[in-house]
């Protein structure tokens, strides 16, 4: 797959200013040395818990926030060093869908005004041409052309998210960043929006950077998945490999902790102790070491680097540096056996 987007050593630090003089007292390491690439027609999922830097990564790529350092190449051009005029031109190929379809649509604008705004900014069309494009976009996302004259409050959450998708696609972009696009939706509507996004990817040759905290959603939409923890990608692999055989102890624990709608499934849950540490002063050595079940002395002193240990399967962990690799049973693969604990709860 030719690469559409490559991200190299992306770093975003937010200074924390305190006191009357606004002196810099600390730094939040929101994103620290993130690298990945995204091919044409590909979906890369970024998954992690709150505060892991997944949204900051997405925003940095679009320069909605200015990264501290690193390189973001879109079709071979480094976005971070582009002059504003050139950046504006490139932006039309990169769009974003936000989490909250209630907060990301202006309540005072009709659907037509909402969707035509990108066209007004980027294309020189007549009113009639714009109207046709808006109608096409609406039909594409499964709404009706006559919905154009309505206001956002007349739509349900799922329909609003469709409007957001239509707005993102009306310029026919190459890359769409989805920042938790289905997290605010009802369960029965989520599948509709996910299937819509997958269908549109095939139709329009889109690449998605799909950001979510939901491991199940990420698995469903992504070709490859990056797992983030405290501003770093700790594991990056093809979806199937990552879920069947996670290599990083954090991924392992996350997968074992997801509640699965199957009461018969045997549990070998790894419960991570404590909370995610503050990105203001991340732990020395490996950032995951205070919560890791497999921690060794080297983990406290030295930060591991990302290394490819299997085909297209990279992991940031000391366990894979030398000698025998850590080889746990896949967390969710085991079928229940006789003598397994029955699901807990009640004595009715």
């Amino acid at each position: 797959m030719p690469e559409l987007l490559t991200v190299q050593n992306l770093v975003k630090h937010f200074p924390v200013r305190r006191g009357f003089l606004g002196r810099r007292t600390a730094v939040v390491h929101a994103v620290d040395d993130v690298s990945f690439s995204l091919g044409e027609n590909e979906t890369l999922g970024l998954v992690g818990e709150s505060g892991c830097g997944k949204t900051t990564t997405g925003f940095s790529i679009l320069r909605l926030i200015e990264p501290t350092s690193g390189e973001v190449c879109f079709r071979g051009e480094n976005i971070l060093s582009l002059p504003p005029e050139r950046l504006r031109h490139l932006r039309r190929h990169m769009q974003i869908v936000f989490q909250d379809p209630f907060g990301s649509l202006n309540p005072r604008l009709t659907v037509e005004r909402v969707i035509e705004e990108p066209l007004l900014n980027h294309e020189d069309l007549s009113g009639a041409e714009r109207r046709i494009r808006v109608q096409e976009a609406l039909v594409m996302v499964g709404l009706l052309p006559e919905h154009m004259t309505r206001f956002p409050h007349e739509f349900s959450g799922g329909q609003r998210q469709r409007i957001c998708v239509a707005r993102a696609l009306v310029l026919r972009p190459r890359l769409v960043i989805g920042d938790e696009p289905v997290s605010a939706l009802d369960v029965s509507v989520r599948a509709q929006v996910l299937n819509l996004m997958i269908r549109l990817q095939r139709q329009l040759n889109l690449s998605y950077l799909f950001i979510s905290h939901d491991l199940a959603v990420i698995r469903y939409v992504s070709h490859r998945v990056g797992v983030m923890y405290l501003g770093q990608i700790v594991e990056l692999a093809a979806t199937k490999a990552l879920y069947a055989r996670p290599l990083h102890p954090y991924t392992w624990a996350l997968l074992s902790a997801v509640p699965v709608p199957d009461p018969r499934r045997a549990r070998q849950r790894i419960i991570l102790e404590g909370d995610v540490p503050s990105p203001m002063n991340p732990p020395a050595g490996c950032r995951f070491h205070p919560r890791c079940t497999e921690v060794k002395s080297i983990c406290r002193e030295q930060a591991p680097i990302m290394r490819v240990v299997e085909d297209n399967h990279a992991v940031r962990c000391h366990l894979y540096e030398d000698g025998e690799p850590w080889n746990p049973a896949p967390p969710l693969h085991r079928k229940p056996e006789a003598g397994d604990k029955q699901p807990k709860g009640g004595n009715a």
Partner: protein
Amino acid sequence: MWVVSSRMLSIRNLKTYFRTPKGLARAVDGVSLDIGPGEVVGVVGESGCGKSVMALSILGLLPRPPAYFAGGEILFNDQDLLKFKPDEMRRLRGNQISMIFQEPMSALNPVFTVGNQLQEVFQVHRNLGRAEALQNAIDMLAKVGVPAPERRVREYPYQLSGGMRQRVMIAMALACRPALLLADEPTTALDVSIQAQIIELMTALKEELDTAILLITHDLGVVAEITRRVAVMYTGKIMEEAPTLDLFDAPLHPYTRGLLTSIPRADASFETESLTEIKGVVPSVAALPPGYHFEPRCPEAIDICRAQAPALEEARPGHRVACWRAAHA
């Protein structure tokens, strides 16, 4: 003392309606559900299905008006909670029945310390003195796994992480060893790794204190983890109710089947080629379609569904379903 019956809580044909400017909203419309002592029952449904209103009805926490009870009864140890006077209700709440909420930050008072709020439970319901109540508060925090509880009691909610706040909420709810805990989306606002901690904690405490739990959630995964029995709600009515294993093994209602096949799964042994969609959207309870409310979205609807809503009937032992086709299959 309360007499413990085999059905500790029995909700019978409960109707909680709201008078709104747009008309009458039948948020809970004829729900019947029993919970035995120490039992864990799940109520699943999407937003607006009435699951939270049902829980708030049990505790008498709804503002009246606009809410009113149009019928039914809520029997707690054979006494009808709907007939309780406000001060009787106050003695019961937090003592015999308590509740934890989705967002622990907004459920805790930001201007009092954690110790203050937890201590109050013991002072009000157990008539303990300040020092003794504080000691109990510290013990309770230790029980729910808050590290350094002696230090934490002096902290304010904003100083705690989301997981710690939910632990404090649980400590508060279980302080008086209630017979029944209503848990409204207790893990929804939490991260996956913290969610697992809280589920584990609730299960352990349930075993230790023998508290019955009514778990309200939209997450079928959480239901599968900890409940024994589950009811599926839609537009204020129970669509299906069954032992958890039965419901997942052989769901009878098209809505339940739709929910189960429309959610993506993270377990590697389960392959999802493509997700089934439930067409349409959840209707607002203030503007319900005529006839049977699920009919417009149902892939298997037949003529009678358009005309009349089916009653919740027992299709198999212990397995109730409200569907014309499933009940008479």
